[in-house]
Structure formats: structure tokens, C-alpha cells
């Protein structure tokens, strides 16, 4: 592989690693948001009873 090949490999690995982490964080955030909404909903319905 030539120089440019290594440069693109490096940039590719770095930015895909960072983007992967970003999507992982966003998924974790969405899941947490969903669970919180569910729990809050549960509490509200229990309060109403």
C-alpha cells in the first residue's frame, strides 16, 4: 500500500471508531430515555390509583 492508502486507512479507522462510539452513545441514550419514560408513566398510574 502506498502513502495515501495508509493515510486513508488511518483516517478511516479513527473516524469510524469515533462514529461507532457516537452511535453507541446515542442508542444508550435513547434506551435510557425510553426506560425513564416508562418508569415515570408507571409511577403516575400508581399515583392515580
Amino acid at each position, binding site marked *: 500500500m502506498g502513502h495515501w492508502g495508509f493515510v486513508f486507512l*488511518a483516517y478511516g479507522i*479513527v473516524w469510524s471508531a*469515533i462514529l461507532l462510539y457516537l452511535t453507541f452513545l446515542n442508542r444508550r441514550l435513547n434506551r435510557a430515555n425510553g426506560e425513564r419514560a416508562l418508569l415515570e408513566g408507571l409511577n403516575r398510574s400508581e399515583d392515580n390509583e
Partner: protein
Amino acid sequence: MPTSAKGTGKTRKVLGALVFIFVLLGLYWGLLHAPTHPVQLDIQRIMYLHIPSILTAYLAFFIVFVGSCLYLWKGERRDDILANSAAEIGVLLTAVTIITGILWGKKTWFSPGDWWTWDARLTLTALLLLIFVGYLMLRALIEDERRGAVCGAVLGIIGFLDIPLIHMAVHWFQTLHQAPSILQTEKAPWENIPPDWLVPLSINFIAFILLFFYLLSLRLHVGEIEEEIKKLKLYGRA
């Protein structure tokens, strides 16, 4: 992007936009606009990733140290989440630095055919990665939350204090017993850099710092929500 993020969510969005702009600018400047290095040729463009990422990783580990100290001192969950989040991002950036370093070195100062050399800097960075991977594993393997936070804080402090000693030991070990490599000269590598390279380097550095704070704020937000969920589970239904 999260829809329920309030207040700080807006700041984070602005920050995200800034990150996006600076990353694109850095990519353009580093890959296209910056002139080709006279000696190392185009492989030197890896520097625009390599140096910003390691400096940002050091910042991350410093924040782990600060968060750990604050947690032991005041015992606030927030500081522990800060330390844990910064460690996660620091590990990511260190791993990325080692990969770019290997790719860069392979084309410049490694012996032909080598994928690794026991150069002081490379070794030190790899050890840094091992220490903070250990930190993350410790956090993952202790179930009790308070206990995990305290143990993480202790490891965060010890790890940070140990870095200068490891640095010295590894440097003495290498400089006394092996032929010095290009990177072991007294001068820091960026002192030889003319403005043509300094501008893209600074832009990429700003991009990485902004990116770090963006990721950190997102990770902190996740930590906060997970904290609320724990509280809801514990007290909410009572």
C-alpha cells in the same frame, strides 16, 4: 439526536454543529490543502490525527483524575460519572492514537516489515491504554454502585500519579539501552513544524477538543438519565 434533551441539549446541539464544521475543515485542510511534507511525503498527514488525539486523551485522563479527587472529597455521584465518562473517551482516543502511530511509523521510522517497535513513546501510550482499560474493567466488574465509584476513584488517582514515574522508567530504559529513534531527539516533534503544517494541526486540535467535550457532555447526559432511572426504580414506586 436525542429529542428529550432539555436546556443543556441546546448547547450540545450548537457544540455538535461546531464539531461538525471543525472536523470537516480539519479534514479538508489536513488531507487536501496542506502541502506535502518534503521528506516524509503524504504519510505525514496522519500527524493531523495523531497529535490532536493523544493530547486530547491526556486531557481526558486529567479529567478522570480531577473527577476522582472530587468524588473522594465530596462524594457526589456527578463527579464519579464525570470521571467514568472521561475514562471511556480517553481509552477510545488512546487506542486510536496507537493505531495511527503504528500506521505512520510503519511508513517512516519502523524497521522495514515491522508493525511494532519498543520506542519509549509508543510503549508509554500502550501502557496508558492498559491502565485505563483496567479502570473500565474494574468499573464493570463491581456491581455495588458506591463501591465501584470509590474503587474507580482510587484507581483513577493512583493511575494518574503513576504516569510520570512510568514515563521516566520507560524513557531511561530505552535511551540507555537502545539506539535512539527519530522521535527520541530532545526537540519535541512539533518544534520542527513550519506554519504550513501548524495551521491544519491547530484546526484539527480544536476539532478534537470540541469533539471531546461534545462526547463528554453526551456521555454525562446518558449517565444522568441512568442515574434517574436507578432512583425511580428504588424510590419511585415506594
